[in-house]
C-alpha cells in the first residue's frame, strides 16, 4: 500500500510539473499579419457576455456570413455570463494552457501576466494592420490598456455610467441634484427623513459598491491614485485615501443605501428605483432599454433623469470625466493566431460597428451613428449624446485594477465599513496590510 502511494505521489508530481512547464513557456513574438493560406476551420471564442445579447447575436451572424465564402469555417461561442464563474474558467484554462483562439478578459493583473508571457496578440498592432485603429474611440481603447499603455484587448462596447435619479422624490425631500460628491451624505439624510430610500444599490454583486470607493480619489488625483495604490506606492492612510474612507463611512452613517443592501441583487436594486421607492441609482448606458424606453414603469417615467459623477472642490478631473468603460475586452490567443483568425477578425471588426449601432447601443468606434429605438424616451438621446462630450481621463473601476486577493478583501471590507461594522481606522489598516501582502506577487 505504501509503495502504491509513493508511486502515485510521484506520478502526481510529474503531471503537475508537466503542466507547469507548459504554462511557463513563452511563445515566440507574434507577427500580426501572418502570411500563408487561409484554411477554414472551427475557431472558439470563450466569452462572458449575455447569451442572448447583441454582441453574441451579431458575431453569430457575421460568422455565418463569413462561412458562406469560407466553407468549413465556424465560430464556436462559449459564454459564461456569470462573471465570477467566467473568471474561474479563464484562469483554470490558462493554467492548463488550453485557451481558445479568442477569449474575453479585463485589463487585470492576471491578463497582464498572460500578455507578458507572450500569450496574447498585441491588439494595437493588430488593429493598425487592419486599418481600423483610428476609428475607435480613444476612451474605449484606453479602458482596455494596461498601465504601461500597451493594448492587448479589443473592445466591443462603449458605456457611460450615470447616477439616475427620481425628480419627484428629490423634490419631496427638498433636495437638489448634488453639486459635489461631498453633498451626498447630507442629501441622504434629508431623503431618509422624508421616508425615501436615497440610493438603490446591488450589494450582492459587489462591483457597484466598489465604484463608490473610486470616485473621491479620481476627483482628487485623477487616475493616478489607483495605479499607485494597487502597487503599494500609495496607501489608504494617505490624504486621498482617508478622504474616500471617511466619505464612505459618512455615506453609511447617513444610511444612503437601502437597508440590507449587501444581500440584494441587481434586479432588486433596479426594481427599487423603477418602482419609485429609491431616489437614486448608479448604472451605465447598458440599462438604457430599461430606463429610457416605454418599458420603464409609467408611474416614474416622467420623473426619471440622470446626472454625471459630481466633482469636488479643487478636483483634478473635469465634470465630463467619469466612468466610461468599454466592457470586457476580447484577447487574441497568440499560440493559435494564423491567417484564418486574422482574416476573420478583419472581416468581423469592419462590419461589427454598423450592426452594433443599429441595436441602439454605443459602438466602441466613432464611425457609426447609434440608432435611437422607436420606443425611446427623450432621455435615450440625451444619454447617447454624452458620449460625444467626454474628457480625456476616465475613472477606472477598481475591480479590474487590483490584484484578485486584495480586490476580494476590499469588497468585503467596504460592506463592513458602510454598514458601520468596522471603523475607518480598522478599514485603513486592514486594507493597507492586505495590499502590502498581496500586491508584490502581481506587480513585481
Amino acid at each position, binding site marked *: 500500500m505504501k509503495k502504491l502511494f509513493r508511486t*502515485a505521489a510521484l506520478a502526481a508530481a510529474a503531471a503537475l510539473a508537466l503542466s507547469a512547464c507548459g504554462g511557463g513557456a513563452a511563445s515566440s513574438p507574434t507577427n500580426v499579419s501572418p502570411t500563408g493560406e487561409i484554411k477554414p476551420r472551427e475557431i472558439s471564442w470563450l466569452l462572458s457576455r449575455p447569451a442572448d445579447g447583441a454582441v453574441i447575436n451579431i458575431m453569430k451572424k457575421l460568422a455565418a456570413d463569413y462561412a458562406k465564402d469560407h466553407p468549413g469555417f465556424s465560430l464556436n461561442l462559449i459564454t459564461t455570463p456569470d462573471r465570477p464563474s467566467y*473568471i474561474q474558467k479563464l484562469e483554470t484554462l490558462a493554467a492548463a494552457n488550453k485557451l481558445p483562439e479568442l477569449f474575453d478578459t479585463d485589463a487585470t493583473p*492576471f491578463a497582464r501576466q498572460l500578455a507578458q508571457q507572450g500569450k496574447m496578440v498585441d491588439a494595437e498592432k493588430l488593429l493598425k494592420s487592419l486599418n481600423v485603429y483610428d476609428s475607435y474611440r480613444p476612451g474605449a481603447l484606453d479602458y482596455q490598456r494596461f498601465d504601461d499603455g500597451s493594448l492587448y484587448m479589443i473592445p466591443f462596447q462603449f458605456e457611460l455610467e450615470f447616477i439616475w435619479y427620481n425628480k419627484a422624490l428629490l423634490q419631496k425631500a427638498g433636495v437638489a441634484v448634488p453639486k459635489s460628491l461631498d453633498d451626498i451624505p447630507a442629501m441622504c439624510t434629508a431623503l431618509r427623513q422624508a421616508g425615501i430610500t436615497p440610493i438603490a444599490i446591488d*450589494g450582492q454583486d459587489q462591483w457597484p459598491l466598489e465604484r463608490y470607493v473610486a470616485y473621491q480619489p479620481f476627483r482628487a488625483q485623477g487616475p493616478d491614485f489607483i495605479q499607485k495604490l494597487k502597487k503599494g506606492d500609495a496607501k489608504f492612510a494617505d490624504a486621498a485615501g482617508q478622504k474616500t474612507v471617511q466619505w464612505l463611512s459618512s455615506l453609511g452613517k447617513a444610511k444612503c443605501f437601502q437597508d440590507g443592501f449587501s*444581500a440584494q*441583487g441587481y434586479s432588486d436594486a433596479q426594481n427599487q428605483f423603477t418602482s419609485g421607492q429609491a431616489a437614486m441609482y448608479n448604472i451605465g448606458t447598458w440599462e438604457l432599454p430599461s430606463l429610457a424606453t416605454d418599458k420603464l414603469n409609467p408611474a416614474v417615467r416622467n420623473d426619471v433623469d440622470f446626472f454625471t459623477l459630481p466633482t469636488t472642490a479643487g478636483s483634478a478631473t473635469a465634470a465630463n470625466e467619469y466612468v466610461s468603460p468599454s466592457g470586457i475586452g476580447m484577447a487574441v490567443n497568440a499560440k493559435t493566431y494564423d491567417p484564418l483568425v486574422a482574416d476573420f477578425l478583419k472581416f468581423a471588426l469592419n462590419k461589427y460597428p454598423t450592426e452594433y449601432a443599429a441595436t441602439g447601443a454605443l459602438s466602441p468606434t466613432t464611425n457609426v451613428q447609434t440608432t435611437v429605438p422607436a420606443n425611446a424616451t427623450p432621455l435615450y438621446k440625451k444619454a447617447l449624446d454624452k458620449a460625444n462630450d467626454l474628457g480625456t481621463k476616465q475613472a477606472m473601476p477598481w475591480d479590474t485594477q487590483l490584484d484578485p486577493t486584495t480586490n476580494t478583501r476590499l469588497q*468585503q471590507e467596504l*460592506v463592513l465599513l458602510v*454598514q458601520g461594522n468596522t471603523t475607518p481606522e480598522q478599514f485603513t489598516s486592514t486594507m493597507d496590510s492586505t495590499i502590502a501582502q*498581496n500586491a508584490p506577487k502581481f506587480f513585481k
Partner: protein
Amino acid sequence: MLPTRSRLSVLVFLLPPLLLYGAAVLFPILQSLFLSFFSWNGISDMEFIGLANYLRMFTGDDVFWRSFFNALGYLAICLILQLGGALFVASLLTSLRRGAELIKTLYLLPAVISTVAIAFLFVRIYSIDPVGLLNQLLHWIGLGDLERAWLSDVNTVLAAVSAPEGWRFTGLYMLIIYAALLAVPKELEEAAILDGASRWQLFTKIRFPFIRPVWITTVIMATTYGLRGFDIPYLMTNGGPGQSSELLTTYMYKTAFTSTDFGYASTISVFIVIECLVAVGLILVMLKRKADA
C-alpha cells in the same frame, strides 16, 4: 466469507471500484498535499516554498481562522436543525396512525430543489426592504423589535445561511431515524409504561439507547455533510458581509479560483481533510464511550 472465493475473484470485484475511487478521490487528495508545498498561480513556474503556506495559514491569515470558526458554527446549526429536527419529527410521526407515508414524502421534497433556487428563495424570506416573510411573521406575532436584515447583520448572517442547509436535508435524516424508532420492540415500550415511565423516560431509557447505532451513523453523515457546506452560503452572501459567513470551503474555493493561489488553496484543502477526519474520529470516540458507560 464465501468458501469458494479465490484471490482472483476478490480482485475482479474490488479493482474496478478502487480504480475509479482512486482516480477521483484518493489521488486528488495526494495531489493537494503535494501542491500545498508550492507557490503557484497557474501560469507562472511552480516554486517550492516548503512549509511557508502552512506557516501563513496558522499564523498570518485572519480570514482563515475566521472561516474555520464560522464553519464550526455552521456545522453546529446544521446539526441542531437536521438531527434535532429529524429526531423530533420522527418521534411525532410514531404517534400518528395514518398518513405517515404521505408526510414522509412531503418532508423529503426540499432535497429535490436545486440550491440555486433555494438560495434565492431564502434571500427573499430574510429580506427587510421589501419586507420578507420572516420579518413579516415576527411583526405579526408582536416581535417587531427583532426585525432586521438577517443577511446583512454580521451577528445573524451565519445562522441565516445555515438554516436553509439544515432545512433541506432534515427529511433524509428523519426517515432514517423514524425507521429505527419503528424497529424498537413494542414489548419493551409497553413494559416500561406499565412500570409508570413518563414519555420522557420512555424516550431516554428505552427508545434512544435502542437506536443509538443508527444515531451514530446519522450524526457522522450530518457532520460530514455539514463540513462540506458550500453552495448556499456561496450563492446567498458569497461569504459576506465582510467574512461573517465565509466557510473554509468557500474560502478555499476563492483562494484557488479567484486569487489563483493554487498552492495556498491546496494547503487549506489539506487542513479541511484533516479537520474532517478529526471530527469523525471525535464523534466515534465520544458516542462510543457514552454507549459503554
